[in-house]
């Protein structure tokens, strides 16, 4: 018993129909203080506990476990922090697979020839846990401790914004494949290049697809996560929709990573003059796209068209929603149906899809394809530069203009690839179909979406 505490018979506690916290009317904290009267053998020594926790933490954050091999004289080392855990773990894994496929194929095809030397390629990556600050630390570590030659991008705009500043400081070129916000390219940095089409295209291509219908949707509700990429996409969508005769009846942002969206979906349900808007456009991430669809079903919200900028193109979307994924539109940086004739070893989108499936056992998503394309950009820039000097490779990247399985890779003055179009996909019978633009489409856009009760 601790000193100073009154001994109260246990029965007096038991007869009180009260809390398990404190004796009523008794404001003293309970005598639940540690230490004293403890048989010391019960205690693990504090340093041991601290050490184990630290160890567990290090393992969890991937500091101790990471991929790739060390740089040797004839190996070019590419570094990348990637989100393998956390909110964008799915997209991060697809990014990693894209990089890995490029590394595997480039080595299988003899490596990169620079002058008379042939370099093999190796990838060093860390898990950034979907945290942009962590991503920046890891970028620094890759440059200073691992001495990588070049940097591939992380997953997502927020992380890319952080990492590009580090790349700029150390003057190491970074080709990123998974950050599309204008903000990335508007800071006057010279060492950042992005192979993907800019954010403004994401919603535009889906709205164009909707407007190409014989009886297009008249009202649209736009919901968006509040990160910089999603907001940029959403505001571009609002401008495009209202300037093309679609009425934007609801426009709302929600916290990025929100788990429940019933609040705004309830407001959205009656936003089109008391009715459900014809089209629901979500600008956010895969998890929120899935949540939106699930909750639309729960709340019985039946729009004629659902469209999400990010989500439908990832394989998870179909597996987690099942039949409810059908009819949903998505925008895609790349689809296997597109008809490009590239100069790279993949050549065509169809061939890339085949090799990818052989390697990883599942369909490639655009995240994988654009990540592979980032590797290709480096590969051809290094060859063109005839050097592995970071400055010369940067200059070669700035001049790059190649056609690949992924489409054209060519950077404008800011480093963005504004020369490649995007595509609209639709989930049809549990499969991804390309429905717009017409030249690359392999299926008709199914419209309108039947109500949830009639599927």
């Amino acid at each position, binding site marked *: 018993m601790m000193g100073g505490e009154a001994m109260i018979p246990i029965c007096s506690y*038991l007869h009180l129909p009260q*809390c*398990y916290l*404190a004796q009523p009317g008794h404001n003293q904290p309970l*005598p639940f203080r540690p230490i004293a009267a403890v048989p010391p053998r019960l205690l693990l020594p504090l340093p041991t506990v601290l050490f184990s926790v630290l160890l567990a933490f290090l393992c969890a954050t991937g500091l101790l476990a990471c991929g790739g091999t060390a740089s040797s004289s004839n190996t070019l080392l590419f570094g990348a922090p990637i989100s393998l855990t956390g909110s964008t*773990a799915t997209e991060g894994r697809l990014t990693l697979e894209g990089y890995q496929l490029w590394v595997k194929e480039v080595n299988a095809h003899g490596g990169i020839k620079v002058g008379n030397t042939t370099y093999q390629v190796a990838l060093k990556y860390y898990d950034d846990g979907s945290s942009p600050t962590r991503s920046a630390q890891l970028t620094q570590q890759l440059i200073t401790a691992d001495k990588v030659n070049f940097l591939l991008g992380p997953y997502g705009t927020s992380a890319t914004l952080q990492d590009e500043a580090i790349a700029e400081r150390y003057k190491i070129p970074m080709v990123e494949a998974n950050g599309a916000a204008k903000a990335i390219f508007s800071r006057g940095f010279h060492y950042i290049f992005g192979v993907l089409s800019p954010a403004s295209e994401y919603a535009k291509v889906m709205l164009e697809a909707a407007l190409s219908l014989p009886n297009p949707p008249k009202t649209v509700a736009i919901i968006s996560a509040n990160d910089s990429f999603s907001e940029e996409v959403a505001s571009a969508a609002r401008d495009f929709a209202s300037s093309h005769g679609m009425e934007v009846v609801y426009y*709302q942002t929600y916290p990025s990573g929100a788990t429940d969206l019933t*609040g705004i979906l309830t407001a959205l349900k009656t936003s089109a003059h008391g009715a459900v808007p014809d089209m629901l456009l979500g600008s956010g991430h895969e998890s929120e796209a899935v949540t939106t669809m699930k909750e639309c079903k*729960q709340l019985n919200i039946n729009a004629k068209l659902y469209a999400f900028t990010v989500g439908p193109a990832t394989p998870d979307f179909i597996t987690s929603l099942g039949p409810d994924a059908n009819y949903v539109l998505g925008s895609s940086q790349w689809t296997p149906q597109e008809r490009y004739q590239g100069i790279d070893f993949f050549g065509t989108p169809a061939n890339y899809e085949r090799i990818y499936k052989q390697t990883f056992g599942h369909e490639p998503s655009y995240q994988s394809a654009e990540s592979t394309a980032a590797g290709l950009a480096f590969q051809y820039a290094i060859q063109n530069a005839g050097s592995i000097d970071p400055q010369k490779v940067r200059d070669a990247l700035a001049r790059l203009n190649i056609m690949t399985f992924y489409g054209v890779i060519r950077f404008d003055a800011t480093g963005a690839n504004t020369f490649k179009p995007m595509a609209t996909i639709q989930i049809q019978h549990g499969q991804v179909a390309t429905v717009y633009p017409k030249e690359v489409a392999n299926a008709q856009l199914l419209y309108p979406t039947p109500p949830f009760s009639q599927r």
Partner: protein
Amino acid sequence: MLIAQVIVNWLLLGCLYAAVALGFSLVWGIMNIVNLAHGAFILVGAYAAYWAFTQLHIDPFLGLPLTMLLLFCLGWLVQYGAINRVIRAPFLVTFLLTFGLDLLIADVVQLLFTSDRRSINTVYSGLGLTVGTLHIPFDRLLAALIAVILTAALSFFLQRTRLGNAILATGMDRDAARLMGIRIDRIYALTFGLGAALAGAAGAMLVELYPFDPSQGGVFTLRAFVIVVLGGLGTPWGALAGGLLFGLAETVVPLLPGIGPGYDDAIAFALMVLVLIFRPRGLLGKAFYA
């Protein structure tokens, strides 16, 4: 009618949040352990329910007792094997231990199930009662009812059964309880097991309603913490009160003109600060645990 729908959403979500916080509140109240692994137990419950649904075709609601039993065993083992060894060490040690457990469990879940997002689609998802424009989804209604039943059952168990009283007694005065012949280590293991079982129940209901991935454990630990502070320790009904208050910040406040949902976390935490200033014991707390 919008207002009615918002109120229904709020009540349903609030009760669900109560289920999220119930086990956390019990463990904190009785054992004075802020169980940072609570979210990990929710995760295990969610994945157990997911696994049972996809492999054995057991509905998450019907399989709830199984999920709870599994989690009870896990919680019992964790308490008996790990936490009991440091229970009398300074607060920080249990804090660190549960933090480590959280990382460990979440990583094991990720190893087993990968980081892909999972979701359950039952045949009745999307069905509901429709009154005019008011729509009450069955699955959410069921989850809310189960949450209230669990709260009431826990309260009954603690107040009216010998074992429950022993738990309360241990929480009030460990040493006196031991003198009365209560086996403290077993009571702790039982309490922690119950806490884990309740977390498992919450997980099984969450996976039915939302897509789930292994990174979400921490989110729910944080929410459980806020809910318990809002509602107050000391009684299971505190978790319900806290859950409803927290749900208010997420469903009703975003619809007020000029605020918007971007601020719901800020509002929830502002509420927490207000409660701490004006009613530090929480809404229903009997006394704030130091």
